[in-house]
């Protein structure tokens, strides 16, 4: 009894249906392979020239059992560049991308609304607010993540309660609620920046608010990895139920689902991922919003395939964008700026297309 998700309402001609089906089935393995290739290529890229063979040898030396290790010669500097600078940064980018993709796809499914994302709902803003507070107070890492999570979750709860107060339904209430919540937390950012020290804390805060993987290290990977593994894993396990949430509550309840508890779990898990990501790398806007759209183009709207695909595309997307950020200019280009410059036009295009379809499809 496979459910046909509510978003996919177009009746595709029969001929192309087979092609679509094929794409849906092969999409995920192809994406996984692409991610591996992109990751490997990114490891070879950087301002410091390390021959690809050395990269492979250093990696092999890092992960293989000792009898298998290659006996290549590489310099200590190359070892540092690959293991201390590139590897943590790429892992952090991939984890953040996968997490944001998952969070975005889950939220869009749960809210039956392809125009929401962690940043539009104010989660990133809220999490950043909590994190800024932690930086201002000089709290340790655990406090930073906890504070970011509290901020993100409060924002998410506010946005969804506010949207529920509307009886209209549809896209507008939740988007407006997100705008309101975001604006509120952005005002708090301003307040925190205003009270922060211009010389020592303010640059750190501003830089952090823009979002960047430049300060990635193994420690940050160790913070984000368990968060994404736990919350992302849970969302993936819940993925067929998210299909049910994309029906309306009445139908879902009829199928025996306790939608209320499920909704809140999805909210909390998404908030946890975004909070973890924001805590280690600042606000990386738009990825959570547009990545699920790319994923839908590849594997369709069924969340059983959409969630893994969003995770993979999210990781690929942030890896590629961060490659641009660290290669393009002699100084670092923060990734938050790049994702916003790509994301905002992409979002505008999606919006335009969906509006045209809504009016033209009559």
């Amino acid at each position, binding site marked *: 009894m496979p459910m046909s998700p509510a978003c996919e309402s177009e009746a595709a001609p029969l001929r192309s249906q087979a092609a679509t089906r094929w794409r849906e089935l092969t999409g995920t393995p192809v994406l996984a392979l692409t991610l591996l290739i992109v990751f490997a290529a990114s490891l070879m890229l950087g301002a410091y020239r390390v021959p690809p063979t050395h990269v492979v040898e250093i990696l092999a030396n890092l992960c293989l059992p*000792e009898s298998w290790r290659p006996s290549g010669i590489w310099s*200590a500097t190359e070892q*540092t560049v690959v293991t201390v600078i590139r590897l943590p940064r790429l892992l952090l980018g991939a984890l953040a991308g996968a997490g944001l993709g998952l969070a975005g796809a889950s939220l869009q499914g749960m809210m039956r609304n392809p125009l929401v994302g962690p940043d539009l709902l104010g989660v990133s803003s809220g999490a950043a607010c909590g994190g800024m507070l932690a930086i201002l107070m000089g709290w340790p890492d655990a406090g930073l993540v906890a504070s970011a999570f509290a901020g993100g979750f409060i924002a998410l709860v506010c946005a969804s309660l506010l949207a529920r107060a509307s009886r209209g339904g549809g896209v507008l209430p939740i988007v407006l609620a997100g705008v309101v919540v975001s604006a509120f937390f952005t005002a708090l950012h301003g307040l925190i920046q205003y009270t922060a020290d*211009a010389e020592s804390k303010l640059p750190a805060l501003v830089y952090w608010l823009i979002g960047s993987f430049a300060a990635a290290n193994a420690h940050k990977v160790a913070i984000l990895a368990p968060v994404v593994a736990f919350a992302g894993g849970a969302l993936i396990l819940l993925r067929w139920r998210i299909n049910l949430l994309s029906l309306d509550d009445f139908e879902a309840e009829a199928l025996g689902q306790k939608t209320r508890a499920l909704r809140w779990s999805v909210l909390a898990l998404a908030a946890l991922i975004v909070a973890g990501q924001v805590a280690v790398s600042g606000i990386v806007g738009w990825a959570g919003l547009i990545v699920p759209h790319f994923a839908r183009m590849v594997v369709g709207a069924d969340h059983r395939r959409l969630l893994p695909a969003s995770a993979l595309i999210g990781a690929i997307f942030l890896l590629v964008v961060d490659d641009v950020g660290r290669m393009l200019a002699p*100084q670092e280009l923060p990734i938050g700026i790049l994702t916003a410059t790509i994301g905002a036009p992409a979002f505008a295009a999606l919006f335009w297309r969906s509006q045209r379809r809504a009016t033209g499809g009559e």
Partner: protein
Amino acid sequence: MRGAQVLALIGALMLSAPAPAREIVDMAGRHVDVPDVVRRVFVAHDPPAIFMTALAPDLLLGTPFSRSPAADALFPPAVRSLPVIGGAMRINLERLVALAPDVVIIWNMRGQPDETARQMQALGLPAVMVDAAPFSHYPAAFRFLGRLLHREARAEELAQALETGALRLQDEVADIPESERKRVYYADSVDGLKSQCAGFFRGEIVELSGASNALRCDRPDGMTASVGVNLEKLLVLDPDAVLARTGATARLLRSDAGWRALRAVRGAQVFAAPELPFNWVERPHSQFKLLAAQMFAHDLYPDRVRFDFAAETRAFYKTFYRMDLTDADVARLRK
């Protein structure tokens, strides 16, 4: 067996790196192994980088700050040819590794656990921390850098120039009776409405110039923010003079109807610091603070403090940058 191989690998890695020749205790009290001969230096923050432009510009790999053409003309030639490579948090780490610095110099910001120091440690680059605030630590900072780079004689010359200048100024303002001591408001931000409280190191220019800061706060100095004030509060404070961080702020204050309500503004007691090759007061903190303090002291107490802008600036440039300023240079500095 495995342990032995790891040890052998570590041994091989250490052999390929230049052997650390000596241990030095930096100004944060950390013990750091540095090469005996330092030829390539990356400075992560502006203030110690500006110390280095005077002490050993030939050893710099680049400047963390960007330089306008106008500013470049007022740096020594050895600095003008340096690339702008960005500082802490902005420099591309792989580029930094490629530049292969022998040592990294970091500003020892008070009380802050230093992320940059940890980052450099992870990269295996020896990093030393240097004080850049308050002003009274500058001679020690120059002497420390002199020891680090084996430029002791030059460092001593610069440290003594700072000490002598500060001492002379102190003598001149020491015997001002409390009744005549100027109460000064320090206009820190562009709109003039942010400031530093009495005793805060970022506003130390006020005390260095022999004035007392009109703005008093209860909270202690430290990594605190600028303090916001408003015009009404300023009217209550009624300072004798305003020291503006930038010329733009001073012009705004002089022309704005609200600010003209202040006695100090109406009485033309608004003074601004020069901004070439960078701001002389703070952001960045630098040795130019000495000149700024002498200049402001003269502005505030023209009868007590002698200060010939052209002569003093020329002497300062001669000592710190070994440059002879032209009349045009002096005019541009005074602007």
